[in-house]
């Protein structure tokens, strides 16, 4: 009896060890490329052309890679600023526009309401990759060619189907009684929306904001097509110059540094707001 129990306990222990052994190997596979790049980006400038074995700095910690990254384009600060400006503006505009639209679709009845809602959602079906040329021409007609504002407007539009859908659901979940009570207290329209309802749909806003930020920060093709002058480039477009190299030689240190600069904000946003990110994912998966 006691040996049987001991054997069972042993089996369970072995199962646990196998489980976590596998878990550690899996985690290593997914973590290693990022970890290796971060470590390698702090190697000495002379090591940048050497194979990354070992990937960590052996000649002492150095920022050479980041310095050489800074020599490309208009300097790394400028391009990080471009990326940040576009991403944050996309977040603010997406939240504002989808908040209003979600409220309108959730609380009001007006002609063509369902048709318009389906129209917004249906844009999900059409790949934006197929309408880049007209976008380029329309932005030029609006005087927004080669401009970060134009790029931002395109990004906001791309975020709308998901965001409007999310916000409408968020407003649908708020009991109508709260609104009526606030109305009786004299709150109307925008004031009602911002003072009373916004705090109640804040989780939805967080989800919308995270997706808007990550998608705008990471987007490559539209930025590549719509931005034409050097000093306007967002980080992914700048990195094409780094990737192309100079005089046939690629500075891999600068590539590693660039990857680190582009990755870290994403990881911070995700790890800090993971709960809201997963909510958005689940909402997309279930509906």
């Amino acid at each position: 009896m006691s040996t049987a129990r001991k054997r069972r306990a042993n089996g369970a222990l072995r199962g646990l060890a196998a489980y976590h052994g596998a878990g550690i190997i899996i985690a290593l596979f997914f973590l290693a490329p990022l970890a290796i790049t971060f470590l390698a980006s702090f190697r000495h400038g002379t090591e940048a052309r050497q194979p990354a074995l070992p990937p960590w700095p052996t000649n002492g910690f150095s920022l050479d890679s980041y310095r050489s990254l800074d020599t490309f384009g208009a300097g790394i600060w400028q391009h990080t600023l471009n990326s940040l400006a576009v991403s944050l503006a996309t977040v603010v505009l997406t939240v504002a526009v989808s908040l209003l639209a979600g409220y309108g679709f959730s609380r009001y009845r007006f002609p063509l309401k369902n048709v318009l809602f389906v129209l917004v959602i249906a844009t999900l079906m059409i790949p934006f990759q197929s309408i880049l040329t007209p976008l380029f021409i329309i932005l030029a007609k609006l005087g927004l060619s080669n401009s970060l504002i134009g790029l931002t407007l395109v990004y906001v539009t791309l975020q709308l189907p998901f965001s409007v859908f999310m916000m409408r659901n968020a407003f649908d979940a708020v009991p109508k009684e709260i609104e009526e009570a606030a109305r009786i207290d004299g709150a109307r329209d925008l004031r009602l929306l911002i003072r009373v309802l916004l705090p109640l749909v804040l989780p939805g806003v967080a989800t919308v904001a995270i997706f808007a930020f990550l998608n705008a920060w990471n987007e490559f093709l539209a930025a590549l097509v719509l931005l034409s002058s050097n000093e306007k480039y967002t980080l992914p477009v700048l990195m094409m110059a780094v990737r192309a190299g100079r005089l046939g030689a690629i500075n891999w240190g600068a590539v590693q540094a660039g990857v680190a600069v582009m990755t870290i904000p994403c990881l911070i946003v995700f790890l800090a707001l993971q709960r809201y990110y997963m909510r958005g994912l689940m909402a997309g998966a279930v509906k």
Partner: protein
Amino acid sequence: MTGAGRKQQSFSRKRRRRSQWRGLLYIVPAMALVIVFFVVPVIFTGWMSLHNWPLMGTQRWIGFNNYFRMFNDSRFMSALNFTAYYTVIVTIAIFAIAFPLATFVERQRRFVSTYRTIIFLPVVIGLATASLLWVWLANVDSGFIGPALKALGLVERSPNLLASFDSAFLTIIVMVVWKIAGFTMIILLTGLQAIPAELTEAARIDGASRWQRFRYLTLPLMRRTIALALIISVTGSILAFDQFYIMTSGGPQNRMISVVYYIFNQSFVSFNLGYGAALSIALLIILVLISIAQLRLLKVGEERP
């Protein structure tokens, strides 16, 4: 409103009618953006596709000639072929990894949420960033994979992974699986978690083997989720661009030109804007057809849960 005088009733009705139009006001910004940056461009693409439309100079109406040209364009056909090949392989690869991962992180064990988070990390970085990262890892002299294989004594010389089609393709598949598997895993996980535990328990008691439980219980119950994950993976892969542009610049002997890459080349490198528009319409039709198939698939799952 209840028990109010007639005057007040008509007042409130008027207010309600006015507030209906106010609802329209709330959605105006969203509709304006969607119309200017989506609806108009789609129509415009169709219009352009019927023209010979150079960057400079005047455009000329040529009817459906761009479309005839498309069917005789062997490079477009090979781009279609390559995209289909890539889509099939990468989708199989993603599912082959993501499904076991989903069952792995479904268990209630310690640290399981840590595993989930780590596996998911590559999903939140950009595809362009991931491509850059891996093009360095795969570099023959200054990278990591080749030199590491050599250091382990598995190869004599560090292989140039991106130089031949097969190894470059394999590298890209591994990169995409690394980047996307966590996403598919989470989608599949939601499906797994929706299966009632009693059902699996009952099947176990009835003596169903692990494979039988998977084949006759898990798979049918997860139809909807699997369909969804499949559609996301397929549509995403058909639109692949970043990895080929950044990692192989179209690949050895230009054999890695995907459809979006070819459209990009026609429109923004050769500036055949009209022809590029016709290709875009073809891509758009393919994607819409897939979306319709998607709705069908999801519905089938609903009818037979």
